[in-house]
């Protein structure tokens, strides 16, 4: 299953920090997001783009996670040479993340 099947995402930018919100369409899928969309999984999926630390904040009542990613925007929106300097597309790239529930104990 892909992240896109159960959640929607949006990126935001401040300086060289990008944040991606990951929002479950249905609140009952939040636990699966918590379990599978870890900071390491996000960093690995965006390998080569996110150079710094990835921090995860949880908003259970909204069924949402918020990932704050350091050094993710080529030195900062205003000086980056990237075609998408704001990292607006990063949220959509993350939708392709493979998520599968952990089985057994």
């Amino acid at each position: 299953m892909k992240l896109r099947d159960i959640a929607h995402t949006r990126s935001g930018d401040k300086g060289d920090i990008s944040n991606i919100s990951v929002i479950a369409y249905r609140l009952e899928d939040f636990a699966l997001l918590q379990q599978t969309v870890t900071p390491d999984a996000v960093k690995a999926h965006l390998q080569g783009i996110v150079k710094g630390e990835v921090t995860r904040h949880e908003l259970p009542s909204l069924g949402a996670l918020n990932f704050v990613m350091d050094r993710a925007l080529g030195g900062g929106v205003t000086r980056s040479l990237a075609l998408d300097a704001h990292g607006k597309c990063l949220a959509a790239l993350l939708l392709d993340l493979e998520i599968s529930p952990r089985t057994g104990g």
Partner: protein
Amino acid sequence: MALAEHGKLGYLVFECLAERTIALAVRAKRDDPEKGYDPLLQERLSAVLPAATANKVKIISNMGAANPVAAARAAATIAGKLGLGPLKIAAITGDDVLAEISGANPLLEGGTVAEWPGELIAANAYLGAEPIVQALAEGADIILTGRVADPSLFLAPMIHEFGWPADDWQRFGQGTVVGHLLECAGQVSGGYFADPGFKDVPGLANLGFPFADVDANGQAIISKLPGSGGCITTATCKEQLLYELHDPSAYLTPDVTADFRNVRLEERAPDQVAVSGGSGTARPEQLKVTLGYHEGYFGEGQISYAGPGCVPRANLALSIVEERLKRLAGEIIELRLDLIGVNAIASIARPLAEQTEVRARIAARTRTPQAAAWIGREVEALYTNGPAGGGGVTQSVRPVVAAASTSIARERVTPRIHWEIVS
């Protein structure tokens, strides 16, 4: 326009300043002391002022950019020409703190102000709602500011209307949530949301802009005009609530440390979402300052290849240009090579079996405009000297105005109000 005419609004807010806009405006003001405000101010105010004055809608905007006083004078001229009045127009200044910033100030990015490469040309502190509230209390019809935190533009009329005390952090937090939801215009009403088959949004070509009906506790219903395009759902509100957010327990503005963790969103009717549960604690003692640096030049060239073998030909084009640019090594600070359609966004190339077209892109930051211009010229030369079948060359050069951040003690920043009166 539609909102000013039919929205039954008390206040209409235009949020128009991106991170580096002020630094760009500072350059415009250097060339002409009557410039340096938003170049679209004339067009926007000419369009909305007749309906806004007829319906007694007050206008609040950061379109003042680097020159709120000149913006207010321009607004007065526009109102005069339209035969509108009497009107009180307030320009809020004091965000320009360039004189207060020393080279030893630490940057939030690390290092000091002096250590950042480039020439410091602008330093603007984020002002809060306070001076706007004061201008409203003194009867302003139009308020034009420079750098003000985006949600503060919306929080100010709530504080003014409901008389919230200056340390009512809970209501300031909730009001900030409402402001944050509204601050990106159509981004909460279905703009920047559609993903066909997953998130369908009707009528995007006629996207309705959002407004909020706010009660005395700051609880609000976000909606849009009937018949307009777009949609307002808990999902659109969640995306916007978390937009550009870091720690949801501490969203810092000059007015409050807002807490988004317990925000509740509830669909009351189609395209009507109730927002409650925002809260907050005491405002930060330091104000964030955005610094603008002139940091060299940006040069870019692009060229397309199509048909069988387009990716190898585009790669050959990139390597030719890269080799030719070696002679400018001393002037090129950073160089980037992309294949648009292959790896320009996703960074790691995921080769496609049958790529039918691709666009090669070379971008560089350089010390001189001449070196920046060479990037595009080398790409243009591929028409005659490069691989077969390249087409559609574009090239561009512009100065780089980079933004960095520091902070300043609140007491060192003094907002002031300048008035223009239209009789």
